[in-house]
Every structure is written in structure tokens, then in C-alpha cells.
């Protein structure tokens, strides 16, 4: 017979789980239910009778060309941000993992940007890369509009993505370095004895063995780029969605709609669409990419 410890009373396990259940209910299920309710009504800001309007809020959202613009901007932001944050984190981790002189210092320095809040980084970069007074201002003086995120949407989008990468490369770096350190040294030494250089070893041994970590980072980074608070903070502080909707990511739109326009219903409808999109992306990632990941 199995030796199992069984709680005699039914309330004890519930009492233990209650704080967690309460938190989940308060901060996840309750708001989620409210959001669904609001998305189908016209909710007056101060409360009171809200008229049921069916799918009208969703129709409004979908018929707005700037909404689709924000979806495209968000996709570009999440893809480019996630890809380069992981790529740069990987290169840095591979370099630090070789344990050349000074590695300890570099490890510290590379992690540092992650400790800076997104909005603060956004403010700093807005000054550093401002077209008239920043680092590139001398270049602008020679070639007018060489770099002008206040004028060109593409430049503005590059600006906010660069800030995102600058910050989150430090995060991916931590995970990838930890992953690299669990790669058996014997494998790398054997490859080195066979005469393969650092790049060959990275491509053939280290990166394939890092696949689970890379996959984890891909999912988290994509989600972070899509809905992360940093995405909002960076964009709001740097370009505030401009020029002319050029960097208006979906989260910025939702926050502006809800808290500046006091249009809780429209914002709720957009939130639900956003939740749906994230579910689809995560599904795609697990369905098609995870297949190629070997955990053992």
C-alpha cells in the first residue's frame, strides 16, 4: 500500500490555498470578467446603467484603420524586438561564456540595462537620439533628415525598438548564459580538440543545446513586446505614438482610449482582441516551433 499523507479535514488545504486563490480571483478573473462585460456595453465612467450594445464596440474597433495600423506596428515591434534582443543576448552570452579575461566585469555590465525601468530608458534615449540636439545632430546638419524620428515613422519605430532591445538583451543574456553554462564542457573541449573554432562550436553544439532556452525566451519576449508594461512605457515616453500614429502600439492605444478618452468599453473590446491575438501567437509558437525543440 502506498504511503500517502492525506489531509483529514477538507478546510485545511483550502485554507492554505485560499490566499493564492483569492489573489488570482481578485487580480485576474474579476477584471477579466469585467472586461468582457464592458466590451459588450457602453460603460459610463462613473458607473450607472450601461446599455447593452452587442458587438458594436468590436465593429468600431475593427472599422478603424488606425486600429489595424496599431496591430501592424505591434507585430513589427514584437518580432524585431524579440529577435534582436535574443540574438544580441546570445552573442554576448557566447562571448562571456568563453571566460576570457574580464568576463566577470562584462557579465555585470551586460545585465545592467535590465535594471533600468522602461520609461526611464525611453526618456534617456529621447534625449540621446533627438534629431536636433542628440548624438546624431551633427550628422543631420550635413545630411538633413538623415535621422529624424519626429518626422519619419520608420525612424521612430527603429528608435523605440532599439530601446526595447537595449534593455531586454540583458534579460535574455542572463538566461542564455545560464543555459550555456549547463552545456557539458567535455563536448566543447572535444570539439576544440578536433580543431573547430569558437563559431563552429557555437553553431553546431551550443546553440542546438540551448534550444529549450531560446524557445522559452521567444515566447516571453514576444509577449513582452506585445503587451509588456515596458512597451507602453518606452513608447509613451519617447514618441507617444507619433509621428502621426507611426509608433502607436496596441497597448498605447488601449491605455489612451481607456484613461484619456474614458472609453472603457472600446478599450475593453480592444483588450479582448489583444488577448485573443496573444493566445493565437503562443499557440502557433508551441504548435510549430516547439516541435523542433529537444528538451533532452
Amino acid at each position: 500500500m502506498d504511503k500517502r499523507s492525506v489531509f483529514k479535514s477538507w478546510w485545511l488545504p483550502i485554507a492554505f490555498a485560499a490566499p493564492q486563490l483569492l489573489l488570482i480571483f481578485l487580480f485576474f478573473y474579476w477584471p477579466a470578467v469585467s472586461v468582457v462585460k464592458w466590451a459588450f456595453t457602453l460603460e459610463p465612467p462613473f458607473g450607472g446603467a450601461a446599455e447593452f450594445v452587442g458587438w458594436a464596440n468590436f465593429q468600431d474597433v475593427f472599422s478603424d484603420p488606425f486600429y489595424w495600423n496599431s496591430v501592424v506596428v505591434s507585430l513589427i515591434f514584437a518580432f524585431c524586438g524579440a529577435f534582436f534582443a535574443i540574438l544580441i543576448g546570445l552573442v554576448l552570452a557566447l562571448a562571456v561564456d568563453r571566460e576570457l579575461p574580464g568576463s566577470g566585469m562584462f557579465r555585470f555590465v551586460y545585465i545592467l540595462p535590465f535594471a533600468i525601468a522602461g520609461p526611464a530608458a525611453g526618456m534617456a534615449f529621447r534625449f540621446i537620439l533627438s534629431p536636433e540636439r542628440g548624438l546624431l545632430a551633427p550628422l543631420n546638419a550635413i545630411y538633413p533628415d538623415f535621422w529624424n524620428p519626429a518626422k519619419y515613422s520608420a525612424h521612430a519605430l527603429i528608435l523605440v525598438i532599439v530601446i526595447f532591445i537595449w534593455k531586454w538583451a540583458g534579460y535574455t543574456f542572463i538566461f542564455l548564459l545560464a543555459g550555456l553554462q549547463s552545456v557539458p564542457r567535455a563536448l566543447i573541449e572535444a570539439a576544440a580538440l578536433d580543431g573547430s573554432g569558437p563559431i563552429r562550436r557555437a553553431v553546431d553544439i551550443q546553440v542546438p543545446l540551448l534550444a529549450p532556452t531560446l524557445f522559452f525566451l521567444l515566447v516571453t519576449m514576444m509577449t513582452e513586446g506585445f503587451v509588456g508594461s515596458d512597451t507602453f512605457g518606452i513608447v509613451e515616453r519617447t514618441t507617444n505614438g507619433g509621428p502621426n500614429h507611426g509608433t502607436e502600439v496596441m497597448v498605447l492605444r488601449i491605455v489612451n482610449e481607456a484613461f484619456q478618452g474614458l472609453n472603457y468599453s472600446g478599450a475593453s473590446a480592444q483588450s479582448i482582441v489583444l488577448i485573443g491575438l496573444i493566445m493565437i501567437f503562443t499557440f502557433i509558437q508551441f504548435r510549430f516551433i516547439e516541435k523542433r525543440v529537444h528538451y533532452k
Partner: protein
Amino acid sequence: MKNTRLLAAALAAGVISVAASQASAAPVKFEFWYGMSGDLGERVQDACRKFNGSQKDYEVQCVSQNTYDATLQNTIAAYRAKKQPAIAQIYDAGTLDLMLSKAFVPAKKLMAENGYKIDWNNYFSGIANYYATAKGELESFPFNSSTAMLYYNVSAFEKAGIDFKPDTWEHVEEAARKLKAAGFDCPLAFNFDPWSMLEQYSAIENQPIATEDNGYKGLDAKLVFNKTTFVDHVKFFKKMQDEKLFVVKTKQLGMDVVPAFTSQTCQMMQSSIADHGTVGKTLPAGVKWEVAMLPIDKGTERHNSLVGGASLWVLAGRPQEEYKGAAAFLNFLGTPEMSEWWSTVTGYIPVTKTGFDAMKANGFYDKAPYKGRELAIASLTYTPTSANTRGIRLGSFTQIRNEVTNALEAIFMQNADVQKQIDTAADRGNDILRRFEKTYAGQKLD
């Protein structure tokens, strides 16, 4: 056993009654939420301390929510959770949301019920009308008020040999040309804030922004700024920008208009009178500068400009004794001494005639650094308010402002067509207004 329980109960009852009697002796506490931070936030705290020190019955607890929009959001959230403060500072653009919320105690009712006799006509009508119903009943208390002014660098004007005042846009253009010829690269700085370019300009030129008297007569108002001289005004700015006489200065480009002016990079700007103090403190000594009423188009008649800033709303659903305190506090803020103090330390203009007169009599406006601020009052009270200059009573107005900002950004940064962009902004703004109307279906403005 039974005895000890009884004893415990008796003790507990005793403790409670002692606590209760102490509470009744202590001043009645109530909260006031405001949306200012930094130096201005400190001045609000000073005002609260002054009130608490002036009497013993009430104690106001002033809590900063940092920004105007955060104050409105937090007030809404708190109201929904029934934890609202007694008084909240709500910015101009949130006025209609509050009016339709039924979540407030009208200013007049509050003061009458608590035995204060307020001369409501004492408020400058240009200020009071913004926060009053169409019939003229004040719903909230005007608090920190400002209006837009034209700031110009007199030293630069003298150097460029300009011997006239920038009182019309034609004069501004002429001055800009002379400044340019004298080697000033940026005669006038501007950004995409619709507050001066659309709202103030429309009021001064007596142009409507929306139908139904800018929304005062009903929620079915439609935006019409795409059919007024506002469009010509933007075209004029565009032409000036193409000739490099007017220059865009935004945070995104590296410097907003106020720092551009105070660093003497640019020689003219439109900005709030509330910046008067900052400009005076930041410009180096010896640089002569002045403010003027916003320019008008040549050949048109000047009307009063619009008030900006925020007012104080008393929220419904608090215990009765808190309202006594709130009324006392608001009465205290309205005294001429307090309004003079407030205007001196902040740069906001006094909202009452007696406050203004007291300051004028003291010679407040005669000497630097306060000289010039009286022009803001002159601008606000230039004419009695008309249907177009009473104020703007449009729902979700912050979002409509955003639409206009986006249009201006497209026009001035990306060379988009002026009429088309402003049409788009008006159309999108109208969609916002219709949604707002539906949200408050069945409600009437009074």
C-alpha cells in the same frame, strides 16, 4: 468564567466609548486630491497647511495624484469603489464627464446648505462660464486658471529693429521676417498642442469649434473646425514653416517650445500664462521679454480667450460633516488674501474680481517679475462671452485633442494636405462624440 467574559465586554465597551469621544473632539478629516506635482504640488500643500492652521474644526488631507488625467482616473476608480475624496481637482477637458456623472454636489448647493453666502458674480465670467451650465450655474469651483499668451523676446526685437507690437498675425509675420534677416534662426517656435492653435485661436476669432454652442446646448454637437478660419490659420502656419520663419519645437525633436524660448533659440512662442514664472526665472538677467495677448488676424475683432487649467469638484456620497469641512475649505481658498497668495506663488491668475482688484491695488502687477500677468485677465475678459467663446463642452475632449495633434503632426512633419488632415480629425472626432452621446443616452445637459 461568565464573570470574566462580562468584565471583558464591559472593558471593551469602555474602550470603544473613550475612543468615540476622542474622535468627536478631533477635527473632521476629509481628503482633497489634486493633479499637480513638483513646485506647484508643494504650493497646494502650503494652501492645505494654511487652512488647517486657520481653524480647529476640520482637517483637509491633500493627496497629489501627480497629473490631471491620473487625478480624473483615480477619482473615477475611487468613486466606483465608494472611496472617493470629498474634493477633486479636475482639468478643463474633464468638465463634461463630471457634469454628466451625477457624482458631485453642485458648488452653489454646497455653499447654500452650509451657510456660506458666495457672490457668484464675483468670478470672472470668462472663467466661470467654462465650468457652469448653459444657464450659468456654477457646478465646480474655478481654482487654477490660465490662458494662452504670446511670449516674445524684446531684446531680440530691438536688435532686429522691430518697432511694433506682435498684435496681429500679419505683424508676427513681419517681425519674423525681420528677425530672420537679423540672423535669428528661429523667429517663432510652435508645437502641435491644439490648446493655443485651435481652441484659443477659435475663441479669439469668435469661430465655432462645434455646433450647439461648442456643445453647451446638447450632446449632439458636431465638430466644425474644419470649416472655419482655423483651416486658414493652419495654412498660414504651414506657409511660415516652409519659409523657415516658424519652427517646430517638440520634445521629440529635442526641445519643446518653452525651453526653446528661454534658451533664446527662438524669439516668440505661444504658451500658457502659467509659464510666466518659469520663463522669468530661466531667461538670463538682462534679457528683456514681454507677454502679449495672442495675435488676431488682421481686420478681425478680438474676443475673449478661453480659460485653461482645472476646477475643484465636490464629490457626492461623503458623510455630511465632511461637506461642512469642504465648504469651509473652498470658502477659505476663495478669500481675496488666499487668492492673492496663490496667484503670487504660482503664476496662475486670480479667478475672482475681488482677488484681482486686491492684487492690482497692492501694485502686484506694476513691477517685475509679475508685470504682464494682468494681460491674461485682460485677454480672458476682453469681451463678454459669446456662444463661441464661453468654453468647450465636448465629451472625451482629450481624445479629440489627440486627433487634432495627430493631424497637425502629419501636416507640419510629413507635409500632408492641410484640409484633408483637418477633415479627418473632425470626422474622427465626431465619431468620438457620437459614442459619447450614446454612452450617456437619455441624459440632458442643463
